């Protein structure tokens, strides 16, 4: 590798790391419930070898009502000894995976197209990608999944030079399915696609290596398969979020089912039933991800994007279109990179499939497997534009390049401001801000009350996990106290809905609830409001009449 290429990729990886780790403890402002659950379970595993529900070394981690692949929790454990149970420790696995992804993108693109400049552009664009930064700066398991995809592909491609790498590819592919739900659908498709595209190269690898790799893949996967097969509840989440679930249906579809149910005619039943609607939503859910607005202007829910921004920079839109056009044109021409273009294209087309089965589309985490294909297409577009510019007069080149750079810089600065400054103000309630200080305050007041009742209703659902996390509650004691009980109750904390009318005269109890739980004129002992004051948690004590 040329010296300046090494220098540049080092620079790019440093930029990537800086953008991902800078102020990681306080931007996003606080840990959301999923992050807190991951953190406390890691803490519990470290100290007791069991998760919060007392399961030893789980493969599927029960988190609230849902069973999710557990790898991320294990990745937190090493960081706990350096950073204690904190936001930094919980988020660092994602930060590391995100940074690694930038490097892997460089290496993979270099192998696929043998062009340093393209590889540098692709990795640079990923390093500043708002979508990737967003998911790398919070404990989103899907982000580790993306890195696992990249590792799989990297080792897979490496195996054409040294066949034993195929083994590692198998292991990584297996591991990826321990990271996130959508990987369970995506990875098998992705691997099948690789095998089909690279049939020729694979045939050169000896049969024994191929079989060993397959065994490694299945071997790694085995515990997961066993648990999934034996644990009925593990399908719960899939079912709850899928388009199969009847409550997920759209209003007019439900209305149609209701109207149809009244008639005995055959035709209306044939046209309006769950199967037909399922097929329609499947295709529609897939297509929903090719929405320009979602990608470039609005994003989806607040935790998945910076305020006032989409998932990608607006200036990437023309480059993306040019890039896709270039790739397709070269794919048709059939040159030595045809296989590489096939991989890129299919990767892009496979990514939205897992999300298509679910109800909330478009969804930027369930389709995180898209990355880094967007950066790659944009890199192709960028190269195309730069080549085009070379034909222009020198002064025109300068004017256009500087103009382009100014636009890009403007949006980059805008993004930095939106992410690092504005996000905390506008979205603090979406990151469930306030628990840290609130739990500390409750713990200082704890001695004065016999009971502490904490609301577990929207927006304070699953509030117990924040108390465990921020009080660093002893996991073995917690497991002991909650054994065989379905509701959460430990120490003097009870988590249940507050019915203020019945509790108003109870002065032995400290109540913690949201504004919805109390009358609006109540005097609170303390208030913990979101930064834009749109929601708040209150500490309230009853009064004897």
């Amino acid at each position, binding site marked *: 590798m040329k010296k300046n290429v090494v220098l540049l990729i080092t620079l790019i990886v440093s930029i990537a790391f800086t953008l991902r780790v800078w102020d990681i403890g306080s931007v996003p402002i606080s840990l959301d419930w999923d992050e807190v659950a991951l953190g406390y379970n890691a803490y519990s595993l470290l100290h007791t070898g069991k998760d919060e529900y007392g399961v030893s070394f789980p493969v599927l981690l029960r988190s609230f009502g849902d069973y999710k692949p557990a790898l991320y929790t294990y990745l937190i454990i090493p960081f706990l000894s350096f950073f204690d149970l904190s936001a930094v420790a919980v988020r660092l696995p994602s930060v590391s995976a995100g940074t690694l992804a930038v490097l892997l993108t460089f290496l993979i693109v270099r192998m696929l197209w043998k062009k340093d400049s393209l590889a540098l552009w692709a990795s640079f664009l990923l390093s500043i990608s708002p979508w990737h930064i967003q998911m790398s700066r919070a404990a989103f398991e899907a982000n580790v999944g993306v890195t696992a995809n990249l590792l799989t592909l990297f080792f897979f491609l490496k195996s054409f030079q040294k066949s034993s790498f195929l083994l590692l590819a198998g292991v990584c592919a297996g591991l990826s399915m321990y990271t996130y739900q959508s990987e369970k659908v995506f990875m098998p498709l992705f691997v099948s696609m690789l095998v089909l595209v690279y049939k020729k190269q694979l045939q050169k690898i000896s049969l024994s290596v191929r079989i060993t790799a397959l065994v490694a893949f299945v071997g790694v996967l085995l515990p997961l398969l066993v648990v999934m097969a034996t644990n009925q509840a593990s399908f719960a989440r899939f079912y709850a979020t899928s388009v199969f679930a009847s409550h997920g249906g759209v209003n007019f579809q439900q209305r149609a089912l209701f*109207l149809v149910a009244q008639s005995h005619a055959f035709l209306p039943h044939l*046209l309006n039933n769950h199967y*037909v609607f399922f097929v329609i*939503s499947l295709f529609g859910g897939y297509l*929903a991800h090719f*929405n320009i607005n979602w990608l*470039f202007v609005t994003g989806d829910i607040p935790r998945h994007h910076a305020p006032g921004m989409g998932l990608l920079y607006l200036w990437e839109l023309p480059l993306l279109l040019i890039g896709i056009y270039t790739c397709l044109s070269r794919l048709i021409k059939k040159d030595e990179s045809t296989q590489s273009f096939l991989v890129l294209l299919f990767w892009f087309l496979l990514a939205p499939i897992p999300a298509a089965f679910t109800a909330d589309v478009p969804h930027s985490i369930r389709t995180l497997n898209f990355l880094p294909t967007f950066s790659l297409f944009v890199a192709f577009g960028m190269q195309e534009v730069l080549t085009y510019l070379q034909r222009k007069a020198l002064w025109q080149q300068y004017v256009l390049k500087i103009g382009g750079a100014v636009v890009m810089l403007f949006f980059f600065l805008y993004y930095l*401001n939106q992410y690092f400054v*504005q996000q905390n103000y506008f979205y603090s309630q979406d990151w469930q801000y306030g628990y840290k200080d609130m739990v500390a305050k409750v713990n200082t007041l704890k001695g004065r009350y016999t009971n502490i009742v904490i609301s577990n209703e929207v927006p304070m659902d699953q509030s117990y996990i924040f108390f465990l996390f921020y009080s660093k509650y002893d996991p073995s004691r917690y497991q002991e106290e909650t054994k065989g009980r379905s509701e959460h109750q430990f120490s003097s904390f009870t988590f249940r809905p507050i019915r203020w009318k019945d509790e108003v005269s109870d002065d032995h109890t400290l109540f913690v609830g949201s504004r919805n739980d109390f009358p609006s004129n109540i005097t609170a002992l303390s208030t913990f409001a979101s930064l834009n004051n749109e929601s708040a948690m209150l500490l309230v004590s009853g009064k004897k009449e």
Partner: protein
Amino acid sequence: MKKTSVILALIVLMGTLFRFFGVGENPVSLTWDEAAWGYNAYALGTDGKDEFGRMFPYSYLESFGDYKPPVYAYLSILPVKVFGLTEFATRFASAFLGSLTLLVTFFLAQRIFFSAKNKQLYGLLSVAVLAISPWHIMLSRAAFEANVATFFVVSGMWLFLGAIQEKKWYIIPSSLLFTLSLYTFNTPRVVVPILVCLLALIFRKKLWENKRYTFLAFLLAVLLLLPSMQFFLSPQASLRFKEVNIFSDISVITTANQEVTNDGNVWWSKILHNRRVAYSLLFLKHYFDNLDPQFLFMKGDQNAKFSIQFVGELLLIDSVFFFVGIFFLIRKKEGYWWLLFLWLFIGLIPAGTARETPHALRTEITVPMIQMMIAYGLAVSIGYLRTFRLKYIDGQLVLLFILVAYGMNLGYFFLQYTFMYPKQFSSAWEYGYKESIAYVSSVEKQYDAISVSDVLGRPYIYYLFYMKIDPMEFRKKAVVKRDVFGFVNVSSFGKYYFAQSTLPAGKILYIADPKNVPQDAHLMKTFFLRDGEKVLVAYTL
């Protein structure tokens, strides 16, 4: 050529059938705008005055909450004369010109792809996909003036390109048609001037060669527009625009100010959070909303008048060929391929400035281009698949599969539209007026006054329409009020009182919302939506 003509005739015939078959009964009833078109055509046909008595209105037609471009009413005079004041007659102009759009689209495609070997195939497929387009079918089956405007723009463009390619004088009827589109619907008022100016720039040499005709065409447009200039620039004309446009959304400014505050009021923050930037982003959001794949291919417009909800504005299978078409249009660069994109991008601008997006009606002007892109994708795919063979995959089999997929998509749309849509979405069409008015006219002799609630909106126009009230009599008896914006509303005429609290003494029949019936009322009759929900009741006290 002969074969092409036969196929073309068959496709247009099929498309016409889709647009006319049962058009008086499905959609199940008239919207108030449709009723207004029908009645105004009736009034104009009776004594040359609109419902409020303006002689041959030219710039606009005054209507509730709106100043309508008047062309649709004039186009409906003849159908109403011939078929009487009925739903069918009111919708005739839209269905007829919608069908004619199919034919013109073929010839437009011939001019756009003038240099292509397969231009006839492109034309036939364009007409075919337009003929079965849910978007175009839905809008052709009700009195939507937008659909007529689309016809004018498509024909205007066909003649414009004709003037460039064939006969110079074509530019004069082209200018006439483009100008007519401005008097038909609001969207062309933005789209056509931009599009024509850009085309004039692109074809400036040719237009300069024909400068005598070009000048005459220009003069014609100016003469036709001049009498209305004063109105176009008046506050009334822009009122409706102000109501629905995004630039009056002040939350954008509040957010921007908050963002500057969060940055500590430093100067660079005022550049980043400039309100022009914020409004541009908002415009882009609404602009791109109209390209949302869920809108295009899965659900369609949220307004059930423009989409049956179960199928998108286009068919699901169209999505594949839409993308294929775009790619190969750019790659092959046949004829004026760029015109499709130019037309599409400019056509979405007006809708992008409105709050309600995506909007199938305000973007209908782009439909022929979208369908042409899909047709192009289909044509390329057919050309490729006819000879394609790869091991187990036979291209002809894939073609058969595509045909079956289209059949299923279209079949699903057609069956849902015929059997489910009238039942489930009758309320979207203000269903209930016709039945209740039929009841009122059968019993009204027994009452001194009829009080009609406006729960379904704009009741008076339906009474005019269904009772075929003589316009001269209406103008004499109507009590017309104007709201603060200057919009007209009719509060009563004859013995009919609309949404009025003060009623004359005597025996009164109330037509009202079933949720708002006083306890001591005598229920006379209940009117139901097609899905069985109550929609109106008749009672006395």
